[in-house]
């Protein structure tokens, strides 16, 4: 169980012959992910770690049942790869690549909406259901199976906190890295909706950042509909206003997207806020024991 994926999810890797794509294909296969095919234009006929490679997604879906695709191609080619997956009926597309132009992301999301498909990312670490499957680049060993759902805008912070939660004995149901870009596919609210329906998830940790309004939207949804305990932690409290902190999404540009506003919103919605990472498992245990 968990959300979005499970141990039977069959996966296509777009950009499988690249250094990065090939490396993570091996790590995912090692983790148990059901990778059934790969695509790299011009490299059809090869094999990567035993996975057959095709020139087009069309050939891949003609030869395999494919539930999801993970995109590793460089930024300028992501739009082509994502639209190719969507056009060929793939309903879950995880875009790992960073530096995707915003206009390209907009276009991808518009098409995905029309196709009723789910896009995760771009600029995200992917999804993991500990012990079952991972569709992404996260280090699998720091995630232990458990009952806490994790949503994160940042990759590395997700690893860090998941490790803390796993070490505390609680474990993780599904961890989703939503991505750090201004335009991303799945939002916090959409992910929370899925956690709401997942019997395995008993609490959710939100790892937010300065900038954007996704955490404020999440707080509104939590207040009105979400019934499970929520613990939030926000990074970037000390980031100077107007300075870019690496993530394009992390720009403080107005009042509503400050950490203070986000913390207040989560608290108003009945959620708990951790001020340093080590507080997170402590609060989780507290709320889960209730």
């Amino acid at each position, binding site marked *: 169980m968990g959300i979005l994926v499970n141990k039977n999810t069959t996966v296509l890797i777009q950009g499988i012959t690249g250094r990065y794509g090939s490396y993570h294909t091996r790590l995912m296969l090692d983790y148990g992910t059901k990778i059934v095919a790969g695509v790299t234009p011009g490299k059809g006929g090869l094999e990567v770690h035993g996975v057959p490679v095709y020139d087009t997604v069309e050939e891949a879906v003609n030869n395999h049942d494919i539930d999801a695709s993970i995109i590793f191609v460089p*930024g*300028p080619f992501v739009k082509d790869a994502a639209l190719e997956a969507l056009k060929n009926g793939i309903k879950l597309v995880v875009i790992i690549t960073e*530096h*995707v*132009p*915003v*206009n*390209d992301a*907009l276009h991808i*999301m*518009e098409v995905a909406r029309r196709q009723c498909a789910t896009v995760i990312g771009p600029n995200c*670490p992917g999804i993991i259901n500990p012990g079952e499957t991972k569709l992404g*680049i*996260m*280090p699998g060993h*720091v995630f232990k199976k458990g009952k806490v759902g994790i949503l*994160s*805008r*940042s*990759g*590395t*912070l*997700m*690893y*860090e906190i998941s*490790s803390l939660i796993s070490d505390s004995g609680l474990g993780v149901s599904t961890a989703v890295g939503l991505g*750090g870009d*201004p*335009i991303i596919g799945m*939002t916090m609210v959409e992910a929370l909706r899925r956690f709401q329906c997942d019997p395995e998830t008993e609490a959710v940790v939100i*790892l937010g*950042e*300065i900038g*954007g*309004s*996704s955490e404020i*939207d999440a707080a509104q949804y939590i207040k009105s509909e979400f019934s499970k305990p929520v613990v939030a*932690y926000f*990074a*970037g*409290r*000390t*980031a*100077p206003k*107007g*300075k*870019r*902190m*690496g*993530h*394009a*999404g*992390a720009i403080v540009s*107005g*009042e509503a997207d400050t950490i203070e506003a986000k913390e207040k919103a989560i608290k108003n919605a009945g959620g708990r806020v951790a*001020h*340093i*990472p*080590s507080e997170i498992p402590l609060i989780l245990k507290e709320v889960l024991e209730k």
Partner: protein
Amino acid sequence: MKLHEYQGMDLFSKYGIPHPPYHLISSVEELVYIKNALTFPVVVKAQVLVGGRGKAGGVLFAKDFDELKKAVDELLHKKIKGKTVRKVLIAPKVNVEREYYLGITLDRRAKAPVVIISEAGGVDIEELAKTAPEKIITFHPYTTLELMPFEIREVAKKLGFPKEDMPALADIAAKLYRLFREKDALLAEINPLARVDGRLMALDSVVIIDDNALYRHPELPSAEDEENTPLEKEAEEADIAFVELDGDIGVVGCGAGIVMASMDLITYFGGKPASFMDLGGGATKDKTVKALEILNKKQGIKSIFMNIFGGITKCDEIAKAIVEFLKKTPDAPPVVVRLIGTNDDIGRKILADNGIKAYMNMEKAAKKAVEIAYERRGQ
């Protein structure tokens, strides 16, 4: 990439958005060449990428050539909010009859471009959004392809704009939207869009281009990014995300989220971060050494908090880098290392062999870095 006012104006020209004629100079000597082309009074505007330029003394007026010389002399090479003025723009001082605000940016929530219009041009639009939100209309274009004139007419009608400005406003908005889309802008703003002698024109420009899309815009001017300090530029060239900060504790890590969290921890324990430094995923030994060397060039750093959670990044590479850096730089500030993740056993051994302690817990490491800085500050 944020464009200078004059670079934005050049883009406006290409898209047929009217603006007053202007001259751009970078030395007082150049004034003689444009002398005969000027109509006084003029406005002289420092070309620096900071907000609130006017209030910070970056905009001067001159009613004759002598005053102009003085104004240019005063502005050039002056520091405005920490940025050096290298160019000034000279334009006729115009008689503004009416001012509008027109901006196009990205609505992350709606995942669509959003148009912002108000009659209260010339003011800080974020301020206005708080004090008089009823004076602003924002909307998503009916089709993302282009902004239709009727959409502007509808807004103008609701905000009670005078009819005579409608056609020009609609035309300029459509052009600005085209610029926004075609040039991969994150923000395209005309503030104020002024009526001068019955004609609407842009009196300023703010254009920010999506860095990730720059590769497909070789026609755009290069950044001239004075926002970045020399050390930040050096880091950028080495593909290291680096922002200099006011404090005295260097913060280094892999991944923006974890580095921001590290800065927050430093602050939480009473310290002040001197840097945001993100090596990215999978940093090699050489890149890490380079990063530490850049950080070490920054004045007044009392300690370095290096927070590594190795996913793609290999801890042994990081450990080797720290050892090499400390050998090459005996006068470096103390480095407090937190190291877990891929190959952390090897990395930890390398550090131990060189007498360097490696923390597992990042909060303890952060606290230690703050303590060291506190002690060394006293020295």
